């Protein structure tokens, strides 16, 4: 039974590794904390002893809870790393990336979370609402507000070129 669960989780991790990490990083603002949160989430599912009926939203919820705990433990304010890759900062699209990064930082936590879950995890508003425990409409409005703020970056980019 536990062997089956471990195998299910392994397959899930392989196919959703980046999504889970990006989501955790958007919550913790710290790569180490994000990794810890992902590991804690898997550990919690294992402790449960059996796979939940819907693994994906359940694991994302676990990541969120673990990230919140991590954030509290590490005093998140002390560090706020971007979800975007720093290596590419010195390359071509660095200006846009920095602008998006800045705008990302201005989003509220709910808006940022909704955008990350929708864009990088491909979740529907219903699924986002399930992860956050809010109605679909609330998740949709967080996302729209967040995207409208980020749109400023594209506008500036287009005006510059």
């Amino acid at each position: 039974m536990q062997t089956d669960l471990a195998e299910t989780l392994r397959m899930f991790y392989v196919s959703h590794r980046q999504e889970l990490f990006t989501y955790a990083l958007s919550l913790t603002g710290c790569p180490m904390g994000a990794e810890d949160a992902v590991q804690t989430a898997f550990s919690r599912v294992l402790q449960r002893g059996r796979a939940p009926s819907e693994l994906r939203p359940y694991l994302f919820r676990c990541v969120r809870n673990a990230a919140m705990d991590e954030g509290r433990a590490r005093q998140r304010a002390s560090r706020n790393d971007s979800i975007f890759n720093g290596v590419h900062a010195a390359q071509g699209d660095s200006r846009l990336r920095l602008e998006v990064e800045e705008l990302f930082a201005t989003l509220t936590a709910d808006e940022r979370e909704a955008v990350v879950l929708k864009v990088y995890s491909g979740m529907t508003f219903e699924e986002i609402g399930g992860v956050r425990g809010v109605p679909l409409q609330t998740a949709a409005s967080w996302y729209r507000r967040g995207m409208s703020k980020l749109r400023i970056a594209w506008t500036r980019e287009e005006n510059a070129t």
Partner: protein
Amino acid sequence: MNDDEEKLRALPLAKPRAELDARIDRLLATAAVGGAKRQKVGLGYVFAASAFSAAAGAAVAVVAMRDSVPKPIRYDYIERPTLPARTDPFDFSRSSSPNLAVWGSPEEVVVTYPNRLQELVSEQTLDDSNI
């Protein structure tokens, strides 16, 4: 997917380190091994329980069989250690039990009930050879 989403997706994301893969791998491997061990232990319990049940069942059966066999009646334990050698079967005065007649050598104690002894006496002439 709208254009805004596509633009966001085009930006490279920070990647998790290989260490996270190793950590998750270790966690899942430990869980799988732990699960297999627990399954083995579980099976062990089942086998042990079965064996115990079988042993207990066998023990109960043996006791039942033993109890169903009539125990041999042993008379000599009644008074044998203190019995003096007697030869007179009608002398009840020295018997520790008024309802029993006891005679014979300590090695061959004979116990019977007085009534039955009286019947024997009335039925036949009692001499030493009858005793």
